[in-house]
Every structure is written in C-alpha cells, then in structure tokens.
C-alpha cells in the first residue's frame, strides 16, 4: 500500500483556513527555514480513503478477541469517548482560571476518591501518563520518604524475576540498584531469597499481585511485613488489578504505593500504544510528596493545592485529563456493585479457558489462575519444531489477536492469555477450538504453521534487517515497486 506522502499531486491541498485579515508580517530571511517542507499534498478525499485503508489493516478490540496477556484488552465503552469529546471538557485551557475549570477539578477529585477507595490508598495523583511513568513517580515518592528520614543508605530496589520489564527500568531511572528475587517452583516470591536480600540498604520492593504468571501470592502479608521490618516500602504495580478489583485492595495487602493503568483496568482505549494514564496512589504518610498540584475540595467547590514537599512535576499540567475522564465515566457506570463483577468474570473466563486447554497444552503453573495464565510450548517445540511464535502467527489467521509471547521471561516458549471479563463463553470456546486445531496441525503439518500467517496483508517480516539497517522514515528516492495498491 502507498504511503500518504506517495499519494496526491504537487499543489493539491485541502482548503481549511481563511486569507489574512491583517497586514502580513514578514520575518527577517535569516530566521526562516531554507529547507523545503515535504509533507503530503493531498485532498480530503485521499486522506479519508488512505486512513480507511490503513484502519482495515489493524486489529483492535472492536475487530475481535484480543487475549493479550498483561494488557487487559477489555472492551472500551463508547460513552467514554463521547463524554471526552464534549466541548466542555475538550476545549478547556489548562491554565484558565480555576473557577472556570471547576468541572475538570471535580472530575479529578471524584476519580481520586473512587480510586483511592478501590485501592485502599489515601491520596492519588493523575500526573503520570502511563504505567511506567507511574512507576517512576512511585519510586520518587520512595526516594523522598527515605531522604526526609535522612535514611540515605537505601539504594536497592527488590524486583521479582517475573516482573514487567518496566519495573527494573523505572528503578534504574531513579538511580536505584536492582536486586532480582527468584521465583519458587510454584511461581511465587521465594521468601528465603527475599529475606536474604533485605537489609538496611533496601529502599523497597516492587510487586505485581497477582503476578505476571497469573498467580496470587498467598504469602503477600508476610512479604510486605518483611519489607516494612527492614525499613523499606512496598510498591504495587497495578497492571493486574483487574484480577482482584472489588475483592481485595493493595492497601490491605501492606502496600504503600500503587499505580493503576486506567487503560487496562478502567476500560480506556489503548489507542495503538497510548495515550494511557498511570495514576499513583499512596498512603497518608507519603501524600505530601505527590507530584504537581493536588485537587482540594471546599464544600461544593474545588481548587488546586500546590504541594510544598512534592517530588516535583512529572508532566506538564494535570496529566492525561481526558483519559481520567473516560475512566471516571466507566466507574460511575459500573458503580460499587460492578467492581467485584469485573474480577469475578475476568477470573472465571481465564480459568474456564485454561481448563479447556490444559489437557492438550502444557500450563506453566497448573492449578487455579487469576485473570490470566501462561502456557509453555517448550515440549511442543521439541517434538514438532513449532514454537510459541509459530503458534501465535497461526492464531492470527483466524482473526484473533495472539496472546503475549515470550513473557514472562522465566517461562520458556511462553504464551500468556488474558481473556478479560468483556468476552463471552462463545468467543472463548471458539478461540479454544482454534488453538486445539492448531495443536493438531503442529503435530501433523508443522511446516504449515511455520508459514503462517498467509491471509494477513503481509507475511512474516524480516526483523533482523529492519534493526541492522534501520529505515525509519520515507525517502523521496524510494519508489514503491513492491507495494500493493
């Protein structure tokens, strides 16, 4: 398919703006760009058709099942987007007087009140734009806490080996040394290793619970207690909150800081990779360190409160406001009765799917799972040569987005499945039937799976050349000989 810069004609354009109504101001030539500006020269018709064609080559939650583990690809309700598009929210300048943005402040305050109750925290900031940004913010709170106590030797962050890659990366950004804590054969935190790692150099622990294997750590109270006893703080990576929402709260598990992914648990769309929102909640003793402004309530009215001990801003203005607004719309729709229904159905769907697959596929950690589970295709690969990647590519041919591949890192040939609560039994049954067929195919026609997918816009890609000789932008010299109209 053509690129948009390869479409159109010289001097073709859309008519969008009026003529000048004031005298033209001309700047000194030495300040002006000499370089030509090569942007597409296209009509509105061409833009519309181009992007419609591109959209036809994308699989979203709206197109079909998306059991991408760890990403909570639940349905994104349409009312959320409609509310976010209202002029009364979308056309508000972030620096307009507070009393003219009362509605925005109310949204932030109400979202804070609901989400702190859900997580068992006392205060929350909406500045962070994504989960990883929330982790960074949470670690800054930890840093501020220890600094304020003049407890300066705490340089280490403990992270289980099953953790998301963002955890160690975020800790490194704050200057912490990362200590990996191994998992037991049952996939839980190894308490002996944890005890050995804890000391007066421990700043804190980062944990996802349930973890990325889909397992709830039964020792959670002991884990958080041990960290506290060593003088550290406990950080909850909220990526997997969908599993326990309305049933258990990180605050009651002993966590001091929590980040949420509004684009996972709270139904805001992923947008092809963002924008998300990663609010950070914390206990009272850390609230003064939260970044940016906080919203305070005074009777019916709200105002912004500058934080004197704040760790500093992590983003301009008040965060990804329209994403918070979408999440609030979702929270108000589901309400208190709806929260435990989310986790109940998410976990039910995952266990049902795992149960139907487990006689054929090997489950990495058998037993009851939470909202997601991990298969290991190690044996299948040994027997047939068909890898987790091949299986994923085979799944694509049926209009289902493949599960997360090769994560968590501690499971070989991993496929991680998270059906979410917004899928039906029929959808799951169909996906299971397809996977069972593909398993048979792996035994009988493995070469066919190695060729998959054959019905997508492109076949498998040459990723090695892409990384070795990167082409990251279009060049005018290139003629599209291989692209299909």
């Amino acid at each position: 398919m053509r690129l948009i810069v390869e479409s159109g004609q010289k001097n073709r354009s859309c008519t969008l703006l009026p003529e000048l109504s004031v005298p033209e101001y001309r700047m000194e030539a030495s300040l002006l760009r000499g370089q030509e500006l090569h942007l597409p020269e296209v009509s509105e018709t061409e833009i519309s058709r181009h992007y419609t064609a591109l959209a036809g080559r994308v699989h979203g939650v709206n197109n079909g099942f998306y059991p991408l583990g760890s990403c909570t690809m639940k349905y994104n309700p349409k009312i959320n987007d409609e509310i976010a598009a209202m002029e009364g929210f979308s056309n508000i300048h972030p620096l307009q007087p507070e009393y003219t943005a009362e509605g925005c402040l109310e949204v932030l305050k109400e979202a804070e009140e609901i989400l702190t109750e859900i997580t068992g925290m006392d205060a929350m900031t909406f500045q962070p734009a994504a989960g990883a940004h929330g982790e960074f913010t949470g670690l800054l709170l930890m840093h501020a806490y220890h600094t304020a106590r003049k407890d300066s030797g705490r340089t280490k962050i403990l992270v289980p080996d099953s953790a998301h890659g963002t955890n160690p990366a975020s800790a490194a950004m704050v200057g912490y040394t990362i200590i990996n804590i191994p998992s037991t054969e049952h996939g839980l935190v190894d308490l002996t290793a944890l005890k050995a790692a804890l000391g007066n150099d421990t700043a804190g622990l980062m944990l996802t619970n349930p973890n990325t294997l889909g397992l709830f750590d039964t020792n959670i109270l002991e884990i958080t207690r041990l960290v506290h006893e060593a003088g550290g703080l406990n950080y909850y990576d909220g990526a997997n909150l969908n599993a326990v929402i309305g049933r258990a709260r990180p605050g009651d598990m002993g966590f001091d800081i929590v980040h949420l992914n509004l684009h996972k648990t709270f139904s805001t769309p992923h947008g092809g990779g963002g924008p998300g929102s990663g609010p950070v909640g914390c206990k009272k003793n850390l609230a003064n360190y939260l970044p940016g402004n906080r919203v305070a309530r005074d009777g019916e009215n709200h105002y912004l409160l500058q934080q004197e001990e704040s760790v500093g801003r992590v983003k301009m203005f008040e965060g990804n406001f329209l994403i918070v607004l979408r999440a609030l719309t979702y929270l108000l729709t589901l309400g208190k009765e709806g929260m435990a229904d989310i986790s109940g159905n998410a976990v039910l769907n995952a266990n049902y799917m795992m149960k139907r697959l487990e006689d054929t596929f090997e489950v990495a950690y058998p037993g009851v799972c939470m909202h997601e589970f991990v298969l290991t295709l190690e044996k299948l690969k040994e027997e047939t040569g068909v890898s987790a990647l091949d299986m994923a590519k085979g799944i694509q041919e049926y209009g289902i987005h493949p599960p997360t591949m090769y994560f968590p890192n501690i499971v070989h040939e991993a496929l991680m499945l998270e059906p979410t609560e917004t899928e039906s039994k029929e959808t799951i049954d169909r996906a299971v039937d397809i996977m069972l067929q593909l398993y048979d195919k792996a035994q009988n026609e493995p070469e066919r799976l190695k060729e998959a997918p054959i019905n997508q816009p492109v076949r498998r890609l040459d990723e090695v050349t892409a990384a070795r000789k990167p082409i990251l932008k279009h060049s005018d010299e290139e003629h599209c000989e291989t692209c299909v109209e």
Partner: protein
Amino acid sequence: MGSYILNTERDKREMLLEIGISSVDELFGEIPAEILLKRELEIPAGRSELEVKKRMQKIAAKNHVFPTILRGAGAYSHYIPSIVKSVTSKEEFVTAYTPYQAEMSQGLLQAIFEYQTMICELTGMDASNASVYDGATAAAEAIAMCRDKKRHRVLVSEGVHPQVIEVIRTYLTGVEDTLVLIPCKEGATDMDALKEEIGDTTACVLIQQPNFYGIIEPADEIGEIVHQTKAEYIMHCNPIAMGLLKTPGECKADIAVGEGQPLGLPLSYGGPYLGFMAATEKMMRKLPGRIAGQTTDIEGKRAFVLTLQAREQHIRREKASSNICSNQALCALTAAVYMSAMGPSGMKQTASLCMSNAHYFANELCNLKGFRMEHKKEYFHEFVTICPDAAKVLEVLEEEDILGGLMLDDHRILWCVTEMTAKEELDRVVDILRTYQGHEE
C-alpha cells in the same frame, strides 16, 4: 447499573461445571482471608448510560468554554480540521494495543512510520521515535540521551517553559546539582552566560524555540557555541513555528523535541498531548520508546515493524534507554493526519496567520495607554506586554468571555495569538480595553 459483561447465569454455571467448582468465589481461595474485602466499596452505585451521560453533561457545564482564547504558554488553541477527528475516531486505531504482532497491525505501523517521516521533515532531523508523553518528558528524555559519567552537566535556558524545567529537574532527582539554568537577557538566552557555563563536562544544552516569552532565539549561533565544546544540542520547538522558522536540523541540533499538541490536539485541560522526539542518525540508537521501521516480508513486499527493540525495557530491563512502554500513539496519528490535511502550504499558512495576527494585535495593544512591549526582539505568536494592572486587564476581558494572556506578574502578560482570532475579533478585544480605560478616566 451499567455493565459490559456478557456471561449469563447459565454461562457461568456451565463454566463452573467445566472447571469443577461450584462458585466464582472459590476461584479467589488463594487470597488470604484477612485481606478479602468483606464489605461493599464506599463508592457511588452504578448508573445507566442515560444517567451517567446527564451527570457528565452537568459536570461539563461547570467548566467555562471561552470562545476567544489569547492564552498559550504551552497549550495552544488552533483550528482542528474535521478530517482529523473523523480519522482518529476510527475504532481500529482507537482500540488496538501497541503493534507487537506486525502482520496484523500493518495499518498502525505504517501510520507511525508516516508520522516519523513527517516529524523528520518538519524538524529537519534524521530519525524520529513514535512519541513520548508530552513536550516536557520529551525534553527530560532527550537530556537522558546525552548524559554520561564524564559529561553530566545539563545547561537549560531560562527561556524554556517553567513547567518543562520542573519536569527536567524531577527527572534529575538525585543529581539535581548537575542542572544549570542559563539566564535570559532582553528576553533571549544570554550568550555570554552560556559561554561562561559551558565546558567539557557539559552533556547538553537545551533551549526552547520560540522561547517561553515568544522570542525567537538565535538558535544557529547557540548551536555553534555548543558544538565547539562537543556537547549535544537539544532544541525544544513549537511545531507550528517550524513551518516557517529555520529548522533544528539547519541549526545543527542533535535532538529536536517539542510539544505536538498544536498539531490537531484539543486543549483538553492539559492532556493527552504529544511529545515528539527526533535525532540525528548518530544519536538514533539512543532514542527512547517505540520506533517503527520499514522492512520487507518473506515475499519481498514492503512492510513495517517495531524496530531497534534492543534499546527497550521489555528486552533490556534495568539497562534500557528508558522505562517507557505506553506512548501517545493515537496523538501521533492525530498529528500525522493534521500535517497531511495542512500539507506544506497549510503549515506555512498557519504559521504566517499566527505570526501576522500576533504582530497586529501587539501593535494595537501598544496603542493603548500604559501598554508597551517588554522585549524588542523578533517574536512568533507569543509576546509579553507591560501594563499598569495586569489582573484588572484580564478580569475585564473575562467578563466579555475572552480568555486573555497569562499573567506573569502584576504588570506582565504573556499573550498568544493564533489563526483562530482574526482582525475583527482582535479589534474587539482592544476596543473593550479602550472602553474600560475611558471609563477609568
């Protein structure tokens, strides 16, 4: 209450039977009894879609939408073409995840590749990433690309947006003392102070173009000073101004970053916006976050894929170039559609309208008694005036439904004029102030 769950009671019974248990609660048996929530959450009860919509409309009505906006300072009111909203509300783009499965995400990957191409065109740089959270985090990430043990000092012009500086300072937690602010002189970065501070421990120099006060910085001269010391040069740019001004590429910047919000994103009370980041080929492999690259499939057909992933957190963990995972993909798509709709002529026209309207308004304002420009330097679409009572001026305008400039102190107002306000509207603003001054006398 609303719900998006599909399982009926019958479905649930069948599923529980298959699993071999009798209730959903049994699935939560691993959670210690002490932490199982034994009460209802204290949050509002669920509502129907109709009720929620009415509630949200009520909240929205508590905000005031100003029909005339003369305030910028990091968030800009521009015309958003209808095609932009139409394209960016396509559900496939809205509801997809990061394009990990390239074969099934070609549309998205191509759209990102097109965005990267346009950002490189606009900035005159070699390589762009797929976006970061906003202009401020883009600046902070750019600084992280430059620092190492030997070169650790970070020189930032005081002409950079104060909130951007705040974010940079936060990102430098633990090594705050490496941040040095270079003062402004007559509204632009003080070159003598820069020469004084720069040295062989300087990692990078960051300026904003046009700067916070609207002034056009001598960006090419600054570039020369920076490169004499082999430090890296980062320019934080307004993308609309780039349609007209000498590009970061032409000014020999090593990294160009900026706030992409003016490219088709609504004001949205501050977010979501778009951090764009582009670099020279030399620094390309240090860029944080997602990058789409062109390749071929096994049949030789052109195709696109996320590339240079060896930089990223899911591979490198604590050794990654950044922790970024989610970016602002849909906002990047928005910017690409905006730039396509505008084309080269529309981008230049927008910049020219902004600049001409701003200069007209500045002249008219300064015909008012007691008003004068703070600086004499060349500016783009923002400028600072000095007047007797800034608060009163803004209050008078607000009563007439006009959001005036940003008050910097009792006497200084930072104005912004874009293509959205033409002569008639600007004249009205000046008339209102003139009438007010008449009454005062």
